[in-house]
C-alpha cells in the first residue's frame, strides 16, 4: 500500500491545502483561472517553494534529492516542451507499442521531427514521457485541453490503467466537471485565493 499525504500546504500565498491519496486513487481539482491550481501541482512536485507537510509513504521531499522526488511525484505541465529535433530523443526508452496504440498515436511517431507534432499529439506523448519514470503520483494540469472527446477518453483510460496496474495515484486538475466525474472518485474546489474545500458532487 502506498499513501500520499498533504497537510496544511501553503505556497505562494495560496492554501492551506490538505488531502490524502491511497494506492491507485485519483482526486480531481477544479476552480477559476488564477486560483492557484497549477501552482499547487508545482509545489507538490517541489518545483516551487512551499510550507507545510508533504509525505509519500511517510517520506518528505527533503529526504531525497529534488530530481528523485520529481520522478516519484511527477508534474505533467499543460503545455509540454520538446527541445530535441526528433521526438524519440526525448525518451530514454521507447514507449510500449500498445501504449502508443492506446492513445491513437502513429507507431512511427518517435522518428518524427518535433515540428510535425500537433498540440494534441504533444499532450499524449508528454503523458507517455512522464509515465516512463513510473511515478507513484501523477500531477495532471488540464491534460486533455487539446484533445477531441474520443482521444480524451483514451487518455483517461491509460491513466486509470496505471492506477489499476501499478497503483499510481493522481491529482487531476481540469475545468470540465464531466471529465472530473469520470476520472476522480473525490474532488476539491479551489476558490479565488486558493481557498480549498472538498466537493460533494461535480456540478
Amino acid at each position, binding site marked *: 500500500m502506498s499513501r500520499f499525504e498533504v497537510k496544511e500546504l501553503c505556497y505562494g500565498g495560496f492554501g492551506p491545502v490538505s488531502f490524502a491519496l491511497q494506492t491507485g486513487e485519483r482526486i480531481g481539482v477544479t476552480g477559476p483561472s488564477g486560483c492557484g491550481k497549477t501552482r499547487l501541482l508545482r509545489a507538490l512536485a517541489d518545483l516551487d517553494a512551499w510550507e507545510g507537510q508533504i509525505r509519500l509513504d511517510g517520506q518528505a521531499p527533503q529526504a531525497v534529492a*529534488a*530530481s528523485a522526488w520529481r*520522478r516519484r511525484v*511527477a508534474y*505533467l505541465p499543460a*503545455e*509540454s*516542451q520538446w527541445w530535441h529535433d526528433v521526438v524519440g530523443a526525448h525518451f530514454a526508452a521507447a514507449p510500449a507499442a500498445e501504449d502508443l496504440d492506446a492513445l491513437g498515436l502513429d507507431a512511427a511517431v518517435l522518428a518524427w521531427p518535433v515540428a510535425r507534432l500537433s498540440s494534441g499529439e504533444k499532450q499524449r506523448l508528454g503523458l507517455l514521457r512522464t509515465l516512463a*519514470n513510473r511515478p507513484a503520483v501523477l500531477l495532471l494540469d488540464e491534460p486533455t485541453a487539446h484533445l477531441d472527446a474520443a482521444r480524451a477518453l483514451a487518455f483517461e483510460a491509460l491513466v486509470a490503467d496505471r492506477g489499476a496496474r501499478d497503483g499510481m495515484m493522481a491529482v487531476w486538475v481540469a475545468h470540465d466537471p464531466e471529465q472530473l466525474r469520470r476520472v476522480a472518485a473525490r474532488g476539491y474546489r479551489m476558490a479565488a485565493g486558493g481557498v480549498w474545500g472538498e466537493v460533494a458532487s461535480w456540478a
Partner: protein
Amino acid sequence: MGVIALSWLDILLSALPLAALAGAFAWQRLGLGRAMLIGAARTFVQLALVGFVLKGVFQNAHPVWTLCFSLVMLGMGTWEVSRRQHRRFAGGGTVGLAVLGLFTAGFTVTVFALLALVGVSPWWSPQYAIPLLGMILGNTMTGIALGMDTLTQSAWKQRAVIENRLALGETAGESVAELKRESVRTAMTPIVNSLAVCGVVSLPGMMTGQILSGSDPLAAVRYQMMIMYLIASGAGFGSLLTIQLCASRLFDGRERLRLDRLLEAPK
C-alpha cells in the same frame, strides 16, 4: 634605436581626418558624429591620464603601486562585465561573479606569465605586470561578459523547457547542460577566431607596438604568441568558472529554477 616620438601637435593633426569624417556624418544626417566625437575625446582624456599615471608608477616602481593599478583595472573590468548584462542577479551577485572570474583566471595567468615565462626581476615590475594584466583582463572580461549574458538570457527564454526537464527528474545541472555549453562556446568564439587569423588578417597591437619601437620582429612575434596563449586561457578558464557558478545560482538548494533572482537591467 627608439621609436620616433609623436608630439601633441602630431596628435592634433591625426584627429583632422576624424573631424572631416564627423563633418561627412553630419552632412549625411547619420546621427553618429556626436557619439564619435565624444568617443574620440574620451580616448584622448583616458589615454592621457593612463599615460601620466603609468609614467609615475614606472618611475616610482613599488609593489603597492602595481597592486593599486591592478585593482583599478579589476574594478573597471567588473563594471564593464556588469554593464554588458541584459539581466543581473539581485543583490550584487553579477558583480561578485565577475570579480571572482576576472580575478581567479586573469590574475593567475598573469602571475604565471611573470614568474615562469618573462622572469623579470622583481616579478611585479610595473612595466611588464601592468600591460600583461591589462591584455589578459581585457580578453577575460569579454569572455565572461558574453558567457554570462548568453546563459542568463537563454535561461530566461527557455524557462518552460528547463522546468519541464526538471519535472521529468533531471538534475539542475542536466537541465541547463546544453545552455552552459552554448554559453562557453559563445564566450570563446572571439578569441578562437582571433587565434586563427592572428598575423594573417590582423597584426596584433602589441606586436605592432614593439616593432615600431625597434624590437627584432622575431622577438616581438614570440611575445605575441605568448600573449595569445595567455589571453585564450585566461578568457577560457574565466568563462568556464563564471558560467558554472552562474548556472548554479539559477537554482536553489531544492533544484528549483529561480529566475526571480534575475532582474532586467535598466535600458
